[in-house]
């Protein structure tokens, strides 16, 4: 083979590898191209609420990313928002991890929502450091479908949040992070931030931030009719 031919071939190969690298770069979930909006993969995990899916850019919970849920008070339906997705994941034989849940996850309720209980792992690490370590390990292990974590008294540093977000991307895991609403003002690396409130009867969801999509929308999700039905008072 002559030298010139060799050079030509080398150039071609170099061009190809450049192209490949560029397409790899563009395929990253955190790069948003307005021109390619229609081509975007809509590969989120369906949340089970059609109206919510319609608002989310990936038509479901974003994969391999942190979703922050800003809740001040439990009991407004924040878990039932996630339960359909969790049930779907456990039925697909993926593990769901709860890190330091505030109360005991009640097995009969989870089972009747369709969650496969044997795929559910609850961990109670002691101390802030162990908790971050365990969360990161579980997120990046690649065997968890979803991980739910609750912010304890000590707010995690920005650097830690970023690490968790990266770990979630590495392990392709849904990371739901529950935080108080006082954190709404502080910046966060999460790719989706939802503020959850109750307007008396319904769960009010407000999109605070969404990577690659619009934010600011409000949504009202009704709670299960079984729960809010009002009986005639007995006395």
């Amino acid at each position, binding site marked *: 083979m002559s030298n010139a031919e060799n050079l030509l071939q080398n150039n071609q190969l170099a061009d190809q590898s450049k192209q490949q690298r560029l397409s790899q770069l563009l395929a990253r979930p955190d790069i948003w191209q307005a021109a390619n909006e229609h081509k975007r993969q809509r590969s989120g995990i369906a949340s089970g609420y059609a109206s919510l899916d319609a608002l989310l850019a990936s038509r479901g919970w974003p994969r391999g990313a942190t979703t922050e849920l800003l809740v001040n008070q439990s009991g407004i339906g924040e878990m039932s928002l996630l339960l359909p997705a969790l049930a779907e994941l456990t039925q697909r034989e993926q593990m769901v991890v709860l890190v330091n849940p505030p109360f005991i996850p009640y097995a009969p309720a989870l089972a009747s929502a369709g969650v496969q209980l044997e795929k559910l*792992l609850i961990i109670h690490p*002691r101390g802030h450091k162990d908790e971050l370590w365990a969360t990161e390990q579980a997120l990046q292990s690649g065997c968890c479908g979803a991980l739910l974590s609750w912010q304890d008294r000590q707010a995690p540093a920005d650097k830690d949040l970023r690490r968790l977000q990266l770990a979630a991307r590495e392990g392709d895991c849904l990371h739901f992070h529950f935080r108080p609403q006082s954190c709404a003002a502080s910046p966060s690396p999460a790719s989706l931030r939802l503020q959850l409130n109750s307007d008396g009867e319904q769960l009010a969801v407000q999109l605070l931030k969404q990577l690659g999509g619009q934010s600011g929308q409000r949504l009202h999700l009704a709670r299960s009719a079984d729960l809010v039905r009002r009986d005639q008072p007995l006395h």
Partner: protein
Amino acid sequence: MLWLCIQFPKLPLEVLTRAQHDGTEAHAQAVVEQQLIVDANHTAAERGVETGLTIATACALCADLQLLQRDIQREEQQLQQLAQWGYSFTPVVSPQAAGSVDAGDDRFACLYLELSGCLKASGGLHPLLQQLKRELRQMRISCFMGLGHSPSAARMLSQLPEHRQWLRETQAPPSPQQWRQWISFSPSKLLDCDNKTIAKLYACGIKRVSQLLAIPLSEVGSRFGRNFVDYLARLNGTRHDPVPSYQPPPEFHSELFFPSPLDNSEQLLFPAGRLVRELCQQLQRRQLYSHQLRWKLDFGQQGCKVFSVEVSRPLLDAQRLIALTKLQLERIKLEQPIQALSLTCDQLLPMEQDKLDDDLFGKDTQVQRSHQLLDKLKARLGHEALSGVTLKESYLPEQAWQSADTLVLQSNRSKKGHQLKPINAPRPTWLLSRPDRLHSREHKLFYRGEIKLLQGPERIDGYWWQHGRHGRDYYIARGEEGGLYWVFQDLTSEDWYLHGVYA
């Protein structure tokens, strides 16, 4: 088949004196069992002390004779160790213990090794025999060897001096013809049978095995019995010659001693890695795995500390095991300097084909990764930090669930015959670990503001037959801020409690 018989003629003496320095060799020593000399060392033998003498005669011959009681148990242990040593050369090993004196049986302890499968790996017969001899010499155990096509033949030929001479120089295993020659050439007294039979053979004028083989077998059978004919057939190779096969014990134990004590847990990593690698090597060779690695940190006089690393899947990867051990070591505070580190695995289990999910191309499967994650979490957070939940059959809400072992996570994927169904009623996702007392004033309930009852009551009244009745009326209530709660009124005390949250 190529059987090597290694006989240990001086084992009774050597197990007792092996640890001594060479200098004590000059002292006359003998091992006794039931008033009879079993074995004597070189110095004693020079003065005429030999096997079979009574103690009185031996002491008369050699006044300063040191008598040692024979320790059969230690001999047995030593033989097992030798069998394990032989197992590193060939998988077919069979140890045979020495006969005891009172049964009139003066056979030495010996070890049979089947060599035909391992000649290639050891580079031929001659280097292999050299290596065996060298390692035995290092262990300070004297031996003599014989090679045969069956264990009986190897044993007999090991006693034949001409054969031993040939074995010292040979390069290749002999042909079947050569063996037949040696066997027929051997004197009859080398046959492995009782003294009565040998006396009978000599009385018949049969001095060599060749003479015996010349007689028709039926004749031999009628004179010496069926067992003797059997033995001859095994010696000839016309019949199978089974020996019990040795299986190494299913456990692992290794210890490292530090001449200068360590006081830093990071310094421990290197010796720990060495032990783990040793373990992995042995496990891989024998296709076994272990669920639990038990580490022991020995503080010398100040006692010791034991911790264990648990592995949920068969794992032969030394690096991963070291990483798990490291996680455990980080949690440990060393109060005293460590003098020795030991690793024990009590239970080694056979590896099954489907259990080892190590892909040929080194890719981890989903299940494997989840097991690695569980092992890691367990190693750092401790066993008690991990849990699962399952359903339980009970009327009482707080007893309708139980915390499950995390190992349930992957194991029984197949559905069991009896499956629990959750109760068909709206139940809260969060349960309080103990019901929270609610304030009530003027027929109003308060929990972070006033709460109003929406639904109910659902009466749950159980365990009235036991001590302490649990009678409750459950309601679903809504708080001021829209939260839904599961509250109940105790029927006996009429107090209100919060029991769950519909999150």
